[in-house]
């Protein structure tokens, strides 16, 4: 799937500034933010689309500058695509992605993980759904033992027969310290 890009360029009034968790500012065309339900809601709630409203930077405390850069790349590529329609979230026998998407997501698992968290937080359905499918495909055709290795899941919890204390870990050490990201970012200062 591809779309022709019109030759219009964004005017300064059409931009908002977002700040990543590491303090880097990004100028974002309002048109791009339409793909992110979180940003679109934020902009609508705080009237960022009005030219007479003072536009302070929008803090994105859960997104690093590296993630934001990658996200912007996605938003720019899909700028003129029709609105994403989720037809069937469940497994379909075949799915293919355009070459650009395959190259864009040809990244290690840890980067894919961070990008998926960012897409989930910013609520970018096309990116979110695409990453979910690609992640699912990374364990396609694997045995339970191979999946255990790919996901780094250790053996089940077994309690000591005398003390009842767990003697084995159920999950990978890489899971430690992880928690769900809040879906409601702090409102920007007006």
């Amino acid at each position: 799937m591809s779309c022709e890009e019109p030759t219009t360029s964004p005017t300064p009034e059409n931009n908002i500034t977002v700040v990543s968790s590491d303090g880097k500012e990004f100028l974002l065309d309002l048109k791009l933010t339409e793909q992110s339900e979180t940003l679109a809601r934020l902009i609508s709630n705080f009237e960022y689309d009005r030219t007479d409203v003072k536009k302070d930077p929008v803090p994105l405390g859960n997104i690093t500058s590296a993630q934001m850069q990658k996200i912007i790349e996605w938003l720019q590529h899909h700028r003129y695509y029709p609105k994403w329609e989720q037809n069937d979230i469940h497994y379909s026998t075949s799915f293919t992605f355009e070459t650009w998407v395959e190259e864009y997501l040809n990244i290690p698992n840890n980067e894919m993980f961070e990008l998926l968290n960012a897409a989930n937080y910013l609520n970018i359905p096309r990116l979110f759904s695409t990453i979910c499918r690609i992640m699912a495909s990374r364990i396609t055709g694997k045995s339970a033992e191979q999946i255990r290795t790919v996901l780094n899941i250790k053996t089940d919890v077994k309690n000591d027969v005398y003390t009842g204390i767990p003697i084995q870990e159920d999950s990978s050490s890489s899971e430690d310290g992880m928690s769900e990201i809040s879906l409601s970012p702090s409102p920007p200062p007006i």
Partner: protein
Amino acid sequence: MSDGDPPLRLLSLPNTPRRNIIQCMEHIDQFALSLVSNRSKELVKSIDIKCHAINIKVNIIISIRIQFPRDTIECSFDDYQRSVDNPSPTNIKSKVSLGNEGGFVHNKPEYRFEEWLNHALELYHQSELDRVSIFTPLPDMKSFRKTFNK
């Protein structure tokens, strides 16, 4: 993904993406994931996947068949009721396949044939078997019946 790629931290993801990824998987991959650990089993179970029916087929080899609208997972057990002393051994090997496709072999230390059956029933929210088809009688039909007549 290359060999040196870091682990895919599926279980560390928030609930929404985790569920979406599992929903995107094929049935046999979901089933394989459910065998990895108790947590992964609960995760697959929480997706609320529905199957048409779960059957047992007794022929030269006994198998559990999990039927979906488009395909069937078959778990077959070479070692069930092969030994008089221990007709239903723990750590029994199961060949898990989807239709005529390859699949994989798996065994869990605490699983006998009964636990494999319960795993399938629990995973797909089925309270009982739909059908038991017997083509070749087993040496101990009485104990076999106990596995599903509770």
